[in-house]
């Protein structure tokens, strides 16, 4: 087989495979998703008062006292590079190493939001940045610790909020895989539409 023949065979082979995988396979998965899993295939978008309010799989920023807050997010603007928490156009974390003094400073800064709570009671996930910067979940403990603040801001009973958190807590799959978690956006949506 000549070199020339080999090159043409490679080129034809590549093109056929590109059509198969880039075309047929892609369209097959797209079709199955759009036909049978329409909601999640388009990003699990949720609406509130008639407007698309976010994706239940993607965290968003909450800073008001009447909301449950999610994890610290280290994402930055895609254009200016300045901090822009929960930027779903530029996922990422701090990448601070475990012995980097900047890590301690960052966590200390985040802990300032939870003044009055003894540090040993603050769940680490609430003050340490997530990997994606878009983590939609917090641990149940991280939700429970915010109950007094949210209850005071909304004038609702703490017991009602604790029940709401319990109802929104997801357990590990089969008890084996993953960690107990509360989806912050879903919890806040339930709060908002509960009229409180």
């Amino acid at each position, binding site marked *: 087989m000549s070199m020339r023949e080999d090159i043409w065979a490679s080129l034809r082979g590549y093109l056929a495979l590109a059509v198969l995988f*880039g075309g047929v396979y*892609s369209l097959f998965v797209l079709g199955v998703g759009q036909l049978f899993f329409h909601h999640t295939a388009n990003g699990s978008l949720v609406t509130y008062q008639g407007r698309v309010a976010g994706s239940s799989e993607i965290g968003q920023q909450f800073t008001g006292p009447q909301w449950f807050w999610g994890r610290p997010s280290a994402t930055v603007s*895609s254009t200016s590079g300045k901090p822009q928490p929960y930027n779903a156009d530029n*996922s990422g974390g701090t990448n601070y190493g475990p012995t980097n003094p900047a890590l301690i400073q960052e966590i200390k800064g985040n802990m300032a939001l939870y003044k009055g709570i003894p540090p040993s009671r*603050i769940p680490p996930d609430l003050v340490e940045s*997530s990997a994606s910067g878009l983590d939609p979940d917090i641990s149940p403990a991280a939700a429970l610790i915010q109950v007094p603040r949210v209850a005071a801001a909304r004038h609702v009973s703490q017991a009602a909020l604790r029940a709401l958190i319990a109802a929104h807590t997801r357990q590990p799959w089969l008890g084996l895989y993953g960690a107990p978690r509360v989806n912050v956006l879903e919890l806040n949506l339930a709060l908002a539409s509960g009229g409180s």
Partner: protein
Amino acid sequence: MTAMGVLGILIYLVVLFALAVPMGRYIYNALEGRLHWLGPLEGWILRIIGPAAKREQTWRQYWRSFILFNLLCMLITYAVLRLDTYLPLSQGVGLHLVPQGPHLAFNTAASFTTNTNWQNYSGETLTYLAQEFLMVLQFVSPALGLVIAIVFFRALVGRRDTLGNFYADLVRALVYIFLPVAAAAAVLLLALGLPDTFAGPAIVHTLQGAVQQIDRGPVAAFEAIKQLGTNGGGFFNANSAHPFENPNPVSNILAILLMSFLSTALVFTFGFYAKNRRQAVVLAGVTAALYMAGIAIVYLALVNGNPLIHQALGLSAKSMEGREVRNGTAGTALFVSATTAYTTGAVNAWHDSLPPLAGGLPLLFMMLNTVFGGKGAGMLNILMFAIITVFVAGLMVGRTPEFLGKKIERKEITLATVAMLVHPIIILAPTAFALVHRVGTSSILNSGFHGLTEVIYAFTSGAANNGSAFAGLGTNTPFYNVSIGLVMLVGRYLSMAAMMAMAGSLAAKRIVPASAGTLATDSWSFAWVYLFVTLIVGALTFFPALALGPIAEHLVMMGGAVK
């Protein structure tokens, strides 16, 4: 460490091996042309390729077709990355597209062609078109690794002049293995909530009244082959930590299973070629032991957490920095271990932020490069170390070494040594340079011992064709783009070339019938020697670097010193 966490890991291992054995037979049947259920598709592609797909090839002819095909893949991908914003379908994943310059596009093209999937760009800045072309390579590159391993198997088990046809092997691997498994996995991932759309980003108004741009894309299709092909290149920057790529604990364990089962199966495929199931069990057993030891170390390191945080701030030592809540501690530990053992390179947590031993063990796995490894490439490394073990054991008992009845002589040992030495040289030499020159050190984010780990991790990941990163290191610079790009290419093709030449030499030899003096390579005593040869040759080479990097940092962290 919880009982449920440990149980979950054990169940995963049982499922992995239960799937790997029948899959090993399936791969054997597929590559030997015994499967026909997708015959029309196979025939269509072979007809397009033409008569070149019909001739039997010697190892040299096979290697030439292989290299030409790889070169072509790389050139086309490079061109698409440079031109994608001018081509049709230039819808972006995000709204802010960043066209790739020459050295970045070189790095990306080399990365996806060599099954590395190191990424010096963020997926959010690409077009859907570029992502589709990268996905094509995510199918092709693992199949390319697999066929080279298959050629080596054929050379070991009989006396023959030709070793098969490159095009026919490639098409069989893709049509019968990667396509159906990826399609099934993609449907499962869709059911688990992964998006798959070409509709562009969603603009939403958050509950607090802010505007959030949520990037989307054909994630399910991409994710299935990203894991199955031990590629690891994320659709988004945060890779499998991104909730769209890995939304829940079920998708997490499925990803781990997908990335591990074909490479594990390949050990058993080897057993079917060698008609020696015991040989496969011995090699798989010793490798599985290494894998499990690694998982245990990462898991313990994560449970131990970061005592510095506790001492400085009074928080629990359980570190959540750079991790996602939904994955859990066991799910993170297992992912970290699997992605580096199998050289996938996907990450569901930032390895840079993990406790030093949890970040150091992945480094060790990539340095060994024999803990099952990537498709084909890992199996070739296992066999290379098996041949070196046979040689060392042969010296000890004073006999001509044989492996599966093939005499291991000077030529084989020379080639095995070349294949073996490539890895440490292309890791340690560029690391040494990067650590003494400003072009290397100016990219380091975390200073001290950790900074050294960042640099050596980058070159190890490139050399092992892994693709995971200590991502604090800013590697989108001309120096790192070009040097890591070259390391990926040399790491893949030079050692493969040596193994192919060895295949040519072995294929020409007759099988010597086993006698009383033959060293049994399918025994557990051989497994022990193999284990120690791997650890001494593979790990000791790197021990000084490991001692100065993760081990030193671990001691600093446990000693409570932070300045």
